[in-house]
């Protein structure tokens, strides 16, 4: 999680209609000075006021923003990730058309933020490489009140994020190189569908009706039969420290795939057991972290 109060720099860019507006103002200024017609001066004054006021309002809008960026636990390279952005309006006026962006393509727009209100959104974020990526700056800007200019503020966030390798989607039928199966006959506490009967537990609605153990109906409660998972495997994936990006991505994808299937997966780098086999989300993060930093000097 990252918070930053004060923006570093604010700047204004003229849009197409803004250029027209500036040209018209100059033209009117020339007409007023040349003719000495004070009503033209009056109108010119109004145009200048609109220009000044819109600049001031856009500046105030951006100044009254309190920005919080929350990075998700898992970020993957070559994939669109979403950073959670929370924008708080500290002013007594509503804020309109506020956008938060990392680059021109990675942009999030808040249409209205009510006075003293809070809005949340997800900023799309793309990382090309795995490992530590630094988001140096985030831009907060607006075209409001008039789309003549874009005012942007630059937040030097220097957000250091660990990006995991890219994960391919793996389909069972195209799996050619099956890892060495060491798990045949191994004791598994994991529940399966067709293995040996290992006991009873309370019935849940997710269970199939065929699993209900009809012989034991006590206190109006249903019990389901538990079987051992025959497909459960303990895998050790091995990779060298000089592996290519593609190899790392493939290994990461396999690890994620098997962990999602419920298997126990470990990681060996250059023959050394770096992470012993285990299952679950924590194991997945551990392996991905290791793979994300593989080949980089930490």
């Amino acid at each position, binding site marked *: 999680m990252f918070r930053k109060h004060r923006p570093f720099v604010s700047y204004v860019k003229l849009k197409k*209609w803004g250029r*027209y507006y500036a040209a*018209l103002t100059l033209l*009117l200024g020339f*007409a*007023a*000075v*040349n*003719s*000495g*017609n*004070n*009503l*033209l*001066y*009056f*109108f*010119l*004054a*109004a145009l*200048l*006021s*609109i220009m*000044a*006021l819109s600049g001031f*309002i856009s500046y105030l809008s951006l100044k009254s923003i309190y920005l919080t960026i929350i990075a998700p636990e898992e970020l993957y390279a070559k994939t669109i990730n979403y950073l959670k952005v929370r924008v708080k309006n500290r002013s007594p*006026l*509503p804020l*309109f*058309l506020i956008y938060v962006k990392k680059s021109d393509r990675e942009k999030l*727009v808040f*249409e*209205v933020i009510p006075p003293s209100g809070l809005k949340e959104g997800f900023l799309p974020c793309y990382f090309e490489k795995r490992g530590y990526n630094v988001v140096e700056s985030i831009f907060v800007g607006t*075209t*409001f*009140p*008039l*789309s003549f200019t874009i005012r942007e503020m630059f937040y030097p966030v220097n957000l250091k994020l660990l990006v995991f390798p890219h994960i391919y989607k793996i389909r069972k039928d195209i799996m050619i190189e099956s890892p060495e199966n060491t798990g045949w006959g191994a004791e598994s506490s994991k529940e399966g569908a067709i293995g040996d009967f290992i006991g009873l537990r309370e019935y849940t609605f997710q269970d199939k009706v065929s699993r209900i153990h009809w012989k034991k109906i006590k206190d109006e409660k249903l019990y389901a039969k538990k079987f051992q998972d025959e497909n459960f495997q303990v895998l050790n994936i091995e990779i060298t420290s000089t592996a290519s990006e593609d190899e790392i991505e493939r290994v990461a994808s396999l690890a994620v795939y098997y962990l999602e299937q419920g298997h126990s997966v470990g990681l060996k780098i250059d023959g050394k057991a770096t992470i012993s086999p285990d299952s679950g989300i924590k194991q997945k993060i551990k392996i991905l972290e290791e793979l994300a930093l593989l080949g980089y000097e930490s």
Partner: protein
Amino acid sequence: MKVDKRIKIVVYLPLTVAMVSLAHTLAPVGLFFLALLFISFYLDLTKEFYFSGKILTVFGVFLTLFLFILALRTPFEAIAYWIMSLSIIKILGKKTLRDLKQIVALSFFNFVDSAIFHYSFVFLLYLVLYIVSASIALLIITYLDDRRETNLGEDLLKALRNFGIGFGFVTVFMSLFFFIILPRSPYVLIRAQIYSPTRREGFGNELQIGKVEYMNTRDQVLMRIKPLMKRHENFLYVRGNVYNVYKNETWIRDPENTTEWNYKSDSKHKRGVRSFLITVEPMYTKALYAPDFPESIDFRRFLFNKSWGKVFLTKEHEITRKVNYKAFSSSIPDSEFPKGVDFLSVPETYIAIVDSLIKVNNLYGANPGEIAQKVKDYFLKNYRYSLEITTDTNWVHYFLKTRKGHCEYFATLTALILRRAGIPSRIVAGYLTKEWNSFGNYFVVRTRHAHTWVEYFHTNRWIPLDPTPPYQEEKTVLNKLNEYIDYLSYIWTTQVLEFSFTNQIRIFNTLQYFIKNLFKKNLLTLLGGAALLLIITFGTVLLLKQVRYKTHPATQYYKKFEKILKRRGYNLTPSMTAKEIADLVKTPEATDFLEEYTKCRFSTNCDLEELKRKFENFRRSIS
């Protein structure tokens, strides 16, 4: 994508204001265009009727050519009508987001045209309306542009409308500031003849007596004259042309002594010279008018043009706009008797009539002054003022028979009587005003104030003599209101239309003087003012806080409840909930009160009486 009807209305609003403002100045053709605009609004908004883009383009091209060939009165007017037409064409076509933007842009051009043609202070109203409506339209277009859509939700429209109104009004106030500080140049690079002489006031080279076809009784204001020194009279004679020779029922203008005046630049410091600030409406004449006997005129439109010693109004200097100048006048100055003009000549046809008039009414005297007074008294006693126009070809016959007439009859006959008595005399055409504006302390000169009087030469001076009997101005209930409206118009002219670089310097000098004196002499006032300002600011902040954090009525009892418990030694923290407090206090009255408070504070049905009763119960139980 179809454009939302409400968005169309918002975008059409600034265009409507600009077109109404323009039509105001360019009536009646402008009104015709305005009617067309409303018809196109009707077709677009209710019938959803659109012309094809190609037909409109061809029509637009033909219209452009037609208007420029016709060129109307001036090219500027042609441009104005052309922009009005383009706006209407744009409404009649099928609309996209781009068209909406163009309609707002066209409204801008319409409003610029309106600024060129306007004089009236009603322009300010149009400006405010235009800025507010254009702000809302631009805000909404910004939104549409960002979303690439032509529809917005109800709440968003409402929020943008409110924001736009605020934005517009702040802009208007900021405009006043910018208007004052904007740099003004005295040098005009390209002079364009924008105005057309739609009306022409003033006096011609010849004044034909008895051949008046109509009487100009219009209320049109021609000028406003503000005496810069104390003035005791409640009337003012404004000098126009002087006529010396009377021939064939016509007075002929003295070319040396009227519109092309040679002013002496040092005469303003002369003794007995009075100064006036004169604001002239566009009269399309080449004359600058001044009261009494003008000595000099300070017509410094520009700062660096230090002296306009000789006011020579050529065609370029025709009064085509509202102008301000200072005039310095003597009441009756000494002057040399003009040579080469016969100030005693009387046409032969008048000799017998004039002589008999003198004889019958005994208009003799010891000196010219006495004779002049006698003639004046004779007319005042026996004649009355009338604006009736005679069909009689002999005006003298009509005048003497009916004993009524207008100022030209009185002045001409008086001049002729004086001439027959051997006193050199001439007549002066100008204005006589009695209309005093008490709000702005100035005389108003209107078209109907046009007047003629006599001047006779005696003791090296031309002495004015007005033999016309006074007339009563009609007073209406709305007089005071009209006076105030005229005052607003005067302020508009002097402070806005004629606001110049000199005015800017004057404002900054005044400000500088004020600040200097504030620190030097009025330190106590300054401190008092600062203290007052602080109190007002502090009070306003407090008041706003009260308004902003208006508490729920139930909270008042809760706060009292908390206060009592704290006094009794209970340790309450801000994070404690009502239930926690009830557990801490452990009395049924406190629990009752807290239950009622929770119900009252967080649900819609709140019985304040019940809450009050339970609070009183608790208070009694604890004491």
